[in-house]
């Protein structure tokens, strides 16, 4: 990389959750500028919650992010419950963990299937993949839908989950529904393995992220 010139100017990075601009200027091997900009408009959540009721906070903070709203909601509930000395049952704790798993499953599938796979297959988005690789795209959709059905069952909705409330849940799934969900997830394993296999086969296309030299402390 010595003596090289690099000019990177990306306005609104695409296919990421969240917003960012990247500016990098390297002249003759010397880094002149290396910036990660957040062009997003600040919303001031920390100020918004001041003065609101204890049983509204989780609803407000969920809106920090639509993709990880289950995570935000649970973090907020943890804080509220700690502050007010509210304990939750072991059953509710397990259900909350299931909710997090559902969110992770959905988010990872979105990341792999919608955001990364196009890069690995050399196209700009999942949309042309629908025509060129219909089987893979249908598999991703199928899995993504199952992940959403899981969070719909546990928390009511993936984005801004209504069932998660201080003290536990406003509604819980029945034993029958949970058994059906378990079977559905088990039935997904072949599809999950297929996606993992596909990504692994394309792993060579991932850029080499190793550094030339380690940074000094």
């Amino acid at each position: 990389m010595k003596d090289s010139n690099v000019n990177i100017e990306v306005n609104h990075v695409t296919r990421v959750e969240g917003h960012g601009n990247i500016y990098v200027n390297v002249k003759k091997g010397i880094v002149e500028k290396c910036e990660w900009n957040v062009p997003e408009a600040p919303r001031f959540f920390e100020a918004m919650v001041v003065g609101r009721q204890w049983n509204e906070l989780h609803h407000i903070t969920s809106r920090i992010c639509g993709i990880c709203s289950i995570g935000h909601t649970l973090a907020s509930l943890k804080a509220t419950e700690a502050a007010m000395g509210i304990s939750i049952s072991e059953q509710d704790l397990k259900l909350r963990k299931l909710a997090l798993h559902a969110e992770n499953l959905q988010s990872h599938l979105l990341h792999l299937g919608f955001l990364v796979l196009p890069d690995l297959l050399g196209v700009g988005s999942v949309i042309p993949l629908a025509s060129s690789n219909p089987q893979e795209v249908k598999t991703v959709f199928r899995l993504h839908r199952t992940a959403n059905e899981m969070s719909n069952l546990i928390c009511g909705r993936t984005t801004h989950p209504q069932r998660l409330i201080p003290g536990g849940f406003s509604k819980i799934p029945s034993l029958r529904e949970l058994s059906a969900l378990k079977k559905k997830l088990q039935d997904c394993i072949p599809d999950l393995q297929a996606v993992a296999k596909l990504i692994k086969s394309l792993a060579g296309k991932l850029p080499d992220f190793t550094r030339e030299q380690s940074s000094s402390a």
Partner: protein
Amino acid sequence: MKPRVAFFDFAGCEGDQLQVANLEEELLTLLGQVEVVSFREVMKEHSDNYDIAFIEGSCTRIQDEDRLKQIRKNAKIVVAIGSCATIGGINSLKNSRDSLEVRRTVYGENAKLFDTYAARPIDAVIPVDAYVHGCPIDKDEFLHVVKSLLLGKKPDIPNYPVCVECKKNENVCAFERGQNCVGPVTRAGCNSCCVNQGTICWGCRGLVDNPNENSHKEVLIKYGLTVDDAISKFKLYFGWQERKR
């Protein structure tokens, strides 16, 4: 010729755009009817040549107005999706407080670096042709609006309160369960999804055209809220709509 559509976002959580991705297999059917030419979250390509623009998020800075106006110029039809874009959303919670104080609470001495003004729906800046309400949007309602635009008809968005849907769904009223709810003044169209899940209506779809706000505030007080609490409930999502009255 399939209409060309583009997605944009401003001050929001991207949840409404995620709902579009959550259409799953129906997204493929949708792609049979429209051509997506710009959708930052999902695709690399971008084009300024589009017929329909879907916009998520509120306008919270003066510099965002130019971007909105440019989108309005490029598009034949502008659709606001999600509460932040249609009514100001949760963002409008900060409107009733002093702007500098809000910025200081979050950023301390760096407050002045973070520009903001009263969070507002996008129709406060540009004319909007259609609305998909909700926080987040309902997938079926989104598709209904898209289908209406494709068929050349005005989307059918209710002008009656959520109570209509709650009653049809045979829910036990939130007030009967010892809770309080703003469903009676909130625009229906969500199929009372939150009450169906055992909670309350928070008002995310905004007020109906002619809400009887005074009557409902009295109802809230009758069921145990203080006057301040009743007024505060209306600030959660109705901050911008109430300011206009």
